[in-house]
């Protein structure tokens, strides 16, 4: 379970101050997929980076399974699987070696590690890729490797920052199926995206962020009802109060 409480964060430069988060609060519960929607610059990535413990909030706090992220970042991160905004791969390593590396970083060893790697390779249907170096992988293949390395330790919580960018239909479907399966096992999934259909189809609850604040939350249906629209996209535009960022 991921909880964000009254997060404030501003970035100061010599010329001006940008308020990225302005009292954002929400919860992502276990056994649910929670989507974060918001226009560009709404504070999604800042919020997620605060969750990873990379940034510290000016005010408020975030917890992962009750562990305070700023006070105990290593313990909090151990319960987290991360699919970051920009993901790169170690191109001189094979896919298997990368997954092995991240498994070891999460403290897995010996047969437990081997078994965990085998499981994730089977789940993501990527055995054929496993022993190839990742240089020259396609976007979909890269996504699979990143997903595998984030999930090899079976984290209770899983955060994805716009995972479907640049993916074809087949890869998107693989990802969706996997997330659904993962949810059924009782894990907590937090998912930021720009693609309305995807959020509508996949998410149990949706959080709409605008200007660093919570604009609205609820199931996709509830949001549509709230805005008096039939399509989530229309509801989104209405709820954030402008059509800025929807085109992205």
């Amino acid at each position, binding site marked *: 379970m991921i909880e964000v409480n009254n997060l404030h964060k501003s*970035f100061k430069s010599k010329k001006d101050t940008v308020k990225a988060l302005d009292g954002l609060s929400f919860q992502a519960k276990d056994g649910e997929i929670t989507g974060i929607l918001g226009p560009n610059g709404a504070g999604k990535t800042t919020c997620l*980076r605060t969750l*990873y*413990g*990379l*940034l*510290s909030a000016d005010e408020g706090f975030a917890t992962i399974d009750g562990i305070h992220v700023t006070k105990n*970042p*290593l*313990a909090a*991160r*151990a319960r*987290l699987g*991360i699919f*970051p*905004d*920009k*993901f*790169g*791969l*170690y*191109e*001189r*390593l094979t896919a298997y*070696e990368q997954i*092995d*590396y*991240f498994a*070891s*970083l*999460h*403290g897995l*060893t010996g047969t437990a590690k081997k078994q965990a790697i085998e499981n994730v390779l089977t789940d993501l249907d990527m055995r054929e890729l496993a022993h190839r170096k990742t240089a020259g992988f396609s976007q979909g293949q890269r996504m699979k490797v*990143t997903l595998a*390395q984030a999930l090899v330790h079976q984290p209770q919580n899983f955060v994805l920052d716009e995972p479907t960018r640049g993916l074809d239909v087949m890869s998107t479907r693989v990802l969706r199926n996997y997330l659904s399966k993962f949810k059924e096992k009782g894990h907590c999934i937090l998912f930021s995206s720009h693609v309305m259909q995807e959020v509508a189809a996949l998410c149990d609850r949706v959080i709409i962020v605008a200007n660093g604040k919570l604009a609205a939350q609820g199931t996709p249906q509830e949001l549509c009802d709230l805005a008096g629209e039939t399509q989530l996209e229309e509801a989104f535009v209405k709820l954030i109060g402008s059509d800025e960022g929807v085109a992205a």
Partner: protein
Amino acid sequence: MIQFKALLLKELKEAFRDKRALMVALSMGVLLPVMIMVMSKVMINEAVDNPAIYVKFSGEEYAPKLIKAFKDENILSFKDVPEDEKRNWNERNIDFIIPDTFAQDMSDGKPIEIILRAEYGEKSLASPLRRIRDVVSDYSRSIGFKRLLVRGIDVKLLQPVNLQEQDTSLPTSNALMISLVLGMYLMMGAFMSGLSISIDSSAGERERNVLEMLLCQPVSTVKIVLAKLFCSSIIAIISITLMLTLTSFSMNFVDLAKIGATFNIDIMTTLTLMLLLIPICFLASSLQLFFAFQAKTFKEAQSTVTMLIMLPSFVPMAMMMMDDKPAWTEWMPISGQSLLMEDIFKGLPVDWMVLLVTSGATLALTAGLVFTLAKKLTSEKVVMSLS
């Protein structure tokens, strides 16, 4: 420990698969022995053999005996120079002028003025000029002695004090040159071999967007920095080991004693040098990582970190220039090691206390850099510049 092992293993795997960076690192190790060997060979040839010297004599017909004395020492007339060396000797342009009154003055017992004209600042002329001077003074002395002898005077009277020079430490200038180059090259090797690996594992990872992913893992940044430090230090250590082993092997083919060198690169010296240089490898890697991590791109890192090359090249040079070295230079990183290396090459015994202190200071500085860098990596500034 599991984490550190995984981090280090991954760094090493990446480093050893980066063929180009590895080649740069190890080529330094292979080049040094070849260079030192060629250099010594050339110097020994110059110092020991008596290569022909071609002098532009004028008035050689006035002093046939002096010319013969020259000829015995392989100092020949420019007229006899072989075609392929003509240009060289023409440029060196050594003039030797014998006056036409030579024979007359000789028989009258008057002092004779002979002129040797050349560019004395030219390094390649140092040895030929010395030889010409030696021949003339030997010739002059032998005639002087003969004159005294025929007058019934013991020539020993001319030498009331006889100075016997016994050189205990200072090698001749040639050997000094070799040891200077060797010392500088070893320092350079320790300093620069891990360079490309350090840049690749820091600025390179940032550019390839893998650093953020790593910083999000439940690993302390100290471990991350240490793993990268050990990886590039290991590469540098491999490089200097290769360098020293090959140098010591190739030196077997060169007799350094011929040019007055008082050191020998045997196993003991090799081990001492290794002991001296390993802390330098760590310090160098930590400096490289420190600056490379602050750079935004690979290219920026390359230009910043390359400036570090000044440290291993300027510090030993400054040490050479300084006549009165303050005490702190003995234990300061880099200067301490270069002074110790100078001692080793002079054939002096190693001051183990100094070695211990300077190694300690070097490692302490390394640790300081590692912890500062680890702290910096947790700062928001670094995170913000990730994208």
